[in-house]
């Protein structure tokens, strides 16, 4: 099992550690519910160094990569990041990514931990000669500071102004002589920042952010809270809502597909998928009984099961159990009564528009 450079910090803080995508990661420190609430009310600090940073560098790097992902990159200014999908030729989702524009000839692709190696190979096999594709495994730590107080705490910790940074923008600065990249990005549905730094200064940065945030209610948060928050925000997770057999139409991700930008792998398949009604679409379900939906649970809105839960959790903000699920479009109607079969019993739920929770302010 791989360990991030912050593993010692997690142990020192008494985290419960679990295996995730081949990494030993903190599930929680004090409690999943308490940590999720802290992010909604103040801020939380996450170690997400398991995510893969793939550097694509070379004269044709930008245009080569643009033919592999669903968004335009030729117009992505330096200092900005963009969410995109990596599709196979059938239009299935290989991964969802953030692409960072560092220089005209240098981009970072931030990939899901479980897919980083395959993504790297997929990209390397499809770029022109002279473009280097490198998975920077073990070199870069990623810290996510998320919540309404994140920006103020980051400023207190570093003396730098992050407030002018726009959503999906990033800036580069120096800590102990080493370069840190900080972007206004996140996965929790809250305002927040993500810090990419060389592993050698990760512990210093982690401690500084926690110390600066201590009085403001900032706590270390694990993957358990991260999952609760992203489900509340309606954000998809690879291996749950999306996989190679799921396309952007059904996954509600057409906002991340630019069909007008020129050809890319999977474009034709997506166009074909757009021409016919989808067999299923992603919806929210809010439980009306006291039970937590789990991945794989059958769902229906009539007598027969017609769908399946892809993620479920307890939402501390709503004080209600919630799920993401696939249902046929005719049944995916907000407020329609539904049921989820849990441990052999059909429990009452209701179809709900996504996201469950919208960021305030």
């Amino acid at each position, binding site marked *: 099992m791989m360990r991030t450079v912050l593993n010692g910090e997690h142990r020192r803080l008494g985290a*419960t550690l679990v295996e995730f995508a081949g990494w030993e990661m903190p*599930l*929680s420190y004090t*409690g*999943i*519910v*308490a940590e999720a609430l802290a992010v909604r009310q103040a801020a939380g600090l996450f170690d997400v160094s398991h995510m893969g940073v793939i550097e694509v560098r070379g004269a044709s790097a930008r245009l080569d990569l643009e033919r592999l992902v669903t968004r335009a990159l030729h117009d992505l200014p330096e200092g900005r990041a963009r969410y995109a999908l990596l599709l196979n030729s059938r239009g299935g989702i290989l991964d969802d990514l953030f692409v960072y524009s560092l220089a005209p000839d240098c981009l970072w692709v931030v990939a899901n931990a479980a897919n980083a190696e395959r993504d790297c190979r997929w990209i390397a096999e499809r770029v022109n000669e002279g473009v280097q594709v490198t998975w920077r495994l073990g070199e870069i730590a990623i810290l996510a500071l998320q919540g309404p107080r994140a920006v103020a705490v980051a400023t207190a910790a570093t003396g730098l102004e992050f407030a002018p940074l726009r959503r999906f923008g990033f800036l580069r600065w120096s800590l102990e002589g080493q370069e840190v990249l900080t972007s206004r990005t996140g996965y929790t549905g809250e305002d927040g920042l993500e810090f990419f730094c060389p592993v050698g200064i990760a512990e210093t940065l982690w401690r500084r952010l926690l110390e600066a945030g201590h009085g403001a209610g900032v706590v270390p948060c694990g993957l*358990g809270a991260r999952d*609760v928050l992203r489900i509340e925000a309606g954000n998809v997770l690879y291996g749950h809502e999306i996989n190679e057999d799921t396309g952007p139409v059904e996954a509600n991700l057409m906002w991340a597909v630019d069909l007008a930008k020129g050809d890319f792998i999977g474009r034709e398949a997506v166009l074909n998928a757009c021409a016919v009604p989808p067999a299923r679409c992603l919806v929210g379900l809010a439980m009306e009984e*006291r*039970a*937590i939906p*789990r991945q794989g649970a059958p769902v229906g809105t009539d007598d027969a099961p017609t769908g399946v839960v892809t993620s479920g*959790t*307890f939402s501390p903000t709503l004080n209600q*159990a919630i799920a993401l699920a696939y249902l046929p479009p005719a049944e995916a109607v907000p407020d329609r009564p539904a049921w989820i079969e849990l*441990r052999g019993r059909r429990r009452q739920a209701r179809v709900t528009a996504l996201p469950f929770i919208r960021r305030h302010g």
Partner: protein
Amino acid sequence: MNLPADAKYSKSHEWVRVEGDLATVGITDYAQAQLGEVVYIELPQTGRLVHQDESFGSVESVKAVSDLISPVSGEIVEVNEELVDSPETVNEDPYTAGWMVIIRMDEPGELNDLLSAEEYQAFTEEEG
């Protein structure tokens, strides 16, 4: 780990305290720590008959849902209804305020199947 010496323990992580033919049942400190914050508890109606090793309810956290397994056979004579609205009590005080049911035992001899505090501690160390 907090393990009162006056209770007996099951391998499915319930504790039992006995007074006469009445057995008070809850889940152990170890069990609540493994689950994390309890968000839902399902408890039976009073009057229900349960057998030893039969499920009489469930306890659920964000991480997992777990059956409550009866350590003894008998009739459920009392249920801690307050837990339904305050499930966090099970995390905060598993051995006192976090009790779940009281069972009028049919076969007190079943208590011999349970573990002492020391035996349970050794069991959790093996399991963990």
